[in-house]
């Protein structure tokens, strides 16, 4: 599973727009490059990512090779009650990844 890092404030007030940032270690291989022997390197792009907050999907992204290696995604969601922010993603090699962060809502 790919390494990832979530940046999220530990606390938020109810109703507040909370910014979250996730960085995932991934080559985002375009499929256009060749190795030193001239063989094409197969495309491997992290193409789908979703984020659920208290079991409600709050964000989804469909990515292509137009996103840099080690993709960063930044978005907002509304703090409603304390709970888990769960990320899920999938790449072309059918490798899934998940990451979680906790938000305390006051």
């Amino acid at each position, binding site marked *: 599973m790919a390494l990832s890092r979530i940046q999220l404030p530990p606390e938020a007030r109810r109703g*507040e727009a909370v910014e979250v940032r996730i960085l995932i270690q991934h080559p985002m291989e375009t499929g*256009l490059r060749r190795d030193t022997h001239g063989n094409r390197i197969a495309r491997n792009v992290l193409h789908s990512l979703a984020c659920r907050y208290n079991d409600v999907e709050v*964000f989804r992204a*469909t990515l292509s*090779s*137009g996103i840099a290696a080690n993709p*960063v*995604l930044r978005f907002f969601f509304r703090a409603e009650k304390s709970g888990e922010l769960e990320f899920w993603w999938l790449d072309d090699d059918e490798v899934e990844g998940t990451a979680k962060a906790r938000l305390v809502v006051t």
Partner: protein
Amino acid sequence: MKRRAVLALGLLGIPLRGIAQANAHVSTTDPLVYALTKGKAVNAGRVRLELPKIADTGYSVPMTVRVESPMTPASHVRAIHLIAEKNPMRDMVSFQLGPHSARAEVGSNIRLNGSQRVVAIAELSDGTFWSDAAYIEVREAACTEDG
């Protein structure tokens, strides 16, 4: 329009540029745009695409898109799409948002195959489409084909 009238509009602070460039960003017959909009008009405005003017390399360029929207169940942004004019894969990324998003703002780091125009199209809950474009000069391209 007479020159005097144009001048007067300018003095009144009416953005002439906005009028002249309405919908200059997007070709609605572009198959990639058509797949998103099903041929609906794409209006210029409401969306702001932020990119640096110049990037030393195209490997990782910070990008932010903001859309003017109250983000309520009745009126929100459904999706934001990013299209590169000169990348081998022109559809760069699509974000699905909703009233839970609270704020219609997303960011990522994009890859660019040389200097080009990037277009952001937002799809709103009322079924309308809005767009913005930004030109970026890239000194060293990423992902050159057979590079």
